[in-house]
């Protein structure tokens, strides 16, 4: 069944869109990532123009994140205080990220810039997570018994001033590191046009030392606001949100997110982390290949945008 999208001006298969929404929603519920780094390339692949893919993808991420947060909320796995602190940093960071994005657009190399950021950050974070979780999985297996249980890992982060209690995370740390993490993620989100969950999740685990189960809900909570803001900004500035496309992606996405959350409950923290690491690495490798290999078509067409 084909459907003509009014803003994207292409005709696409309804079930394909539901499927893409479902898969991304599933991963979103499972890992606590928004899925922006997946949905944009997928939409581009089926012929949706880039600007519309980014803006409408953000709108879909809002819905699947809400669906995921509500599922996590029942398990009291959302640290609201942490979420708000991250968001405060995030707004600051995303504002500066958007400015840098605009500057790169002027230079005409925004595509390259976005692709390089993807490869760099996804590759770095993916590799880090992969080795860490593989090590702890192996350690758990070799020990054969229960590994040393610690609610979180103590790092230099815990020595900073301005300490606040984050009860849901079981943390008593300075407010500065979460603000900084939020700002960094917001900055990258502004540049790369994604919610930043794939950066936020590892940062919360490794830098802030939050327990994996709380991280997912809190990350989703923060992503709702970042992507919600992005959606409205895109709708106002460039009219690139396609509501018809969003509706289908959302329908698939919210259902996928619920299933993902249920599956996530049955997996261990290390297993979740290693799976997310593999996914992030796969996307990084794919984009790296696109940059390194000779493209089949050297030429590309873009509508002329008058300054």
């Amino acid at each position, binding site marked *: 069944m084909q459907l*003509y999208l009014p803003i994207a001006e292409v005709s696409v298969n309804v079930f394909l869109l539901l499927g893409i929404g479902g898969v991304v929603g599933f991963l979103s519920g499972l890992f606590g990532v928004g899925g922006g780094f997946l949905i944009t390339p997928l939409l581009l692949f089926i012929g949706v123009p880039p600007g519309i893919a980014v803006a409408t993808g953000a709108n879909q991420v809002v819905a699947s994140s809400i669906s995921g947060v509500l599922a996590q909320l029942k398990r009291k796995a959302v640290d609201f205080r942490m979420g708000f602190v991250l968001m405060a940093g995030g707004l600051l960071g995303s504002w500066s990220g958007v400015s840098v994005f605009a500057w790169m657009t002027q230079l005409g190399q925004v595509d390259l810039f976005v692709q390089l950021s993807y490869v760099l950050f996804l590759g770095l974070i993916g590799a880090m997570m992969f080795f860490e979780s593989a090590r702890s999985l192996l350690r758990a297996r070799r020990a054969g018994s229960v590994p040393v249980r610690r609610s979180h890992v103590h790092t230099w982060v815990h020595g900073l001033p301005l300490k606040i209690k984050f009860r849901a995370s079981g943390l008593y740390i300075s407010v500065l590191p979460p603000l900084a993490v939020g700002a960094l993620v917001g900055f990258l989100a502004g540049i790369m046009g994604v919610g930043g969950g794939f950066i936020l999740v590892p940062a919360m685990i490794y830098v802030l030392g939050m327990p994996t189960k709380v991280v997912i809900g809190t990350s989703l909570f923060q992503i709702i606001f970042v992507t919600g803001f992005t959606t409205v900004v895109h709708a106002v500035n460039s009219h690139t949100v396609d509501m018809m496309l969003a509706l289908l992606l959302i329908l698939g996405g*919210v259902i996928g997110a619920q299933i993902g959350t249920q599956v996530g409950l049955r997996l261990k923290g290390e297993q979740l982390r290693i799976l997310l690491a593999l996914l992030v690495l796969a996307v990084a490798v794919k984009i790296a290949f696109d940059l390194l290999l000779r493209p089949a078509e050297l030429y590309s067409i873009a509508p002329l945008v008058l300054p």
Partner: protein
Amino acid sequence: MRWWAVLLLLCAGPLAASETIVAGLSQNRVAITAQYDGSEILVYGAVRRDAPLPKGHPLEVIVTVEGPATPLVIRRKERTAGIWVNAAAVTIDAAPSFYAVATTAPLEDILSATEDLRHRITLSNAIRAIGISAEAADSPEFVAALERIRMAEDRYRMSEGSISFVEQTLFRTDVVLPSNLTEGDYRVRLFLTRGGKVIDKQERVINVRKTGIERFLYNTAHDEPLAYGLASLLLAVVAGWAASAGFRLLRR
């Protein structure tokens, strides 16, 4: 005898005008609805002539359908420091979003180069690229790339010999409009040629417009962007909540 001579003179002078096209379209309006998945337009017609069929080169028909034109940037990737980066770029002032040519025979046999240039019939002549040479030394390659990419997307089409032409009088051809259609006026041109020369031409317009929900969403997105953005957000919030609530009910 004198009477015959006068008639002969009359015929010889405006010979070109003695054969004219009478043409029609199966529809002059395409409504893009939510279910729109491409459409087929029948272009048909006949040749009206005052004199019997002249000897010599046979009569041929060319039909072009042209979508609204937009300015474009064509970029070429080059290898810099090991990675492929957009390097040279060429701006095209007006390239049609859709262009289809249908003929009764191979185009080069039935149309001379000068006539092609005058009427902008072939693809490369239909794409206007004024003053592009300043930006890149090999701009014809960029225009060729545009043609190649859009041919692959089925936006540009050349179907030689696809017009059926009966007794050099009646002709018809089907033009398939793609599903990724851009809104606007589509210009249909019909040319009658003989020996490479255009002897008559006709023009029709197909009006392509979004209707219903498509029209409404498009207009709202452009006229009331803030309300539209907030509505999209609300849609996401409601859908997210509904799915969560629905699953809770299911599990109970």
